[in-house]
């Protein structure tokens, strides 16, 4: 039994703009069929990473392999296996949604059905509308539709749901779940941590060009960051306590309270968002003083793996 080659493999990836290190030694793998969420604050290096993997940017150093190919030297055969939803949408858009999708479908050897894709992104009503006449959120859905029209083996989603209303976001999640079920490997960046938690199998958190943590969605940040928090009000004073045994604590508090209900009782399990914010804040405290435009003086390797 040999392990399958990862869909994406990145090792000590670096990107230097003059003296500024946009990426400072990032290492991770994405397994085939996995949905990997790359999280981090603005300017942390998410888009730089994803654009290097898509072949849009050259790396300064390090290794990168996407579907077994160096993304800096990707052929058309290789591009036919990718689906790319870029962070920014543009285009003058003097074609209709249906025309654009049918046209792009022709680029790929094994495209999806145009009408089905239009329905999957919820644009049936707008299929005959010029793209330039769509709203921002609707255009974003066209971007997503163009990303999946070619039945990609690997789908890049760079902040795909920016500008979506909550209903569209739920619909998008369904679409991505069905792509996952078909075996599509997905690399997702997003600022919506609930989205990452809902869709992702694993996540990597990137800050200041370094990968500060990586792991399964339900274990990232380590056990300590996941210790539930019990909050209650005692004599008008808010109290809180972290404990791995919240039920025991609550039972004891009720007993001590003479069996009377506690005021304002809450048992909170840290969400991915709480854990993420904790990790990023801890990282920022650990960096001496971020000097604008200067390379950080960190060690060679991220905390990855």
């Amino acid at each position, binding site marked *: 039994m040999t392990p399958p080659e990862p869909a994406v493999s990145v090792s000590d990836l670096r990107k230097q703009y003059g003296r500024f290190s946009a990426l400072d030694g990032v290492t991770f793998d994405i397994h085939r069929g996995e949905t990997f969420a790359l999280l981090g604050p603005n300017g942390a290096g998410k888009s730089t990473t994803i654009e290097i993997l898509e072949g*849009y940017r050259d790396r300064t150093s390090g290794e990168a392999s996407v579907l*077994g190919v160096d993304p800096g030297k990707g052929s058309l055969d*290789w591009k036919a296996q990718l689906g790319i939803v*870029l962070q920014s949408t*543009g285009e003058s858009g*003097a*074609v209709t949604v249906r025309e654009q999708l049918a046209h792009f479908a022709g680029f790929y050897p094994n495209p999806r059905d145009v009408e089905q894709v239009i329905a999957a992104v919820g644009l049936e009503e707008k299929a005959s509308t010029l793209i330039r006449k769509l709203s921002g959120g609707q255009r974003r859905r066209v971007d997503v539709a163009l990303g999946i029209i070619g039945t990609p083996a690997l789908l890049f989603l760079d902040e795909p749901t920016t500008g979506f209303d909550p209903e569209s976001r739920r619909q998008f999640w369904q679409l991505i779940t069905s792509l996952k079920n078909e075996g599509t490997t997905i690399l997702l960046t997003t600022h919506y941590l609930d989205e990452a938690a809902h869709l992702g199998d694993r996540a990597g958190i990137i800050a200041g060009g370094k990968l500060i943590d990586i792991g399964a969605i339900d274990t990232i940040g380590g056990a300590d960051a996941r210790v539930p928090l019990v909050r209650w009000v005692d004599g008008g004073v808010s109290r809180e306590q972290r404990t791995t045994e919240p039920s025991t604590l609550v039972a004891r508090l009720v007993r001590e309270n003479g069996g009377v209900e506690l005021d304002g009782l809450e048992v909170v399990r840290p969400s991915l968002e709480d854990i993420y914010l904790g990790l990023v804040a801890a990282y920022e405290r650990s960096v001496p003083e971020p000097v604008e435009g200067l390379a950080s003086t960190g060690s060679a390797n991220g905390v990855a793996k």
Partner: protein
Amino acid sequence: MTTITIPRLPAGRTLKLGGSRIVNEVRAYFRQGDSVFFTFLFPLVMLTIFSTAFSNQSFGTDAAGDDVSAAAYYLPGMLAAGLLLSGLQNLAVDIANERSDGTLKRLAGTPLPVVSYFIGKIGQVLVTGAAQAALLLLVAAVAFGVALPTEPTKWFTFAWVFVLGVTTSAVLGIALSRVPRSGKSATAVVIPIVLVLQFISGVYLTFSQLPDWLQNIASVFPLKWMAQGMRAVFLPENFEAAEPGGLWNLEGVALATGIWFVVGLVVCRVTFRWIRKDS
């Protein structure tokens, strides 16, 4: 490790996709109001203005002694200007905009061959340029009573001057689209070039009346030759004497335009990038 194998794309898709691009490009072209006006209808507007403004003037007489009208006199120049506008101006601005607005970045992420993209652009120019020329000829003949040539040899000359001129103009447009730093600056870079060329190449001003040094400069550029080729088709035979060296010099037209075509093609292939990496 079980490695990933990437299936090969079928052969022969470059031309097929080029055809699909042409359809897409032509459709989008006619939906852009500004390109339709400034590149497609512009020569027609200019022909109408010149023909009306100088309607009482004679521009010489043909062999039979009949007056040559303003419309007849300006028709070849406007046809040549149409070649330049439909090809060079249209594509240089269009592609610079596509680079700015993310169209090219999106295409760069798909398995569309660059050559198919070029075919789409050149095809668009051929189709719109042909429609523009047909409209010019129609309006000249019907509205301004210009007698069009009847000899097949003249139309043969027209056909090759048109095809060579418009494709040359198209590849030069693709090559020039690299120059503007943004879509917004594209018209500012391209329009002056196109305008100056039109003034020194015998489109608006009579070429034989320009000073020799200016004629020599214009002769370096292809528009002068395209205009000369068009004059050979549409002006009376006795006008040949007014040409440089007293000859239509169609061999020169083919050679000069052909050289620009080859140079333009090489520049396109060598310099064209979907995106400016790392910008």
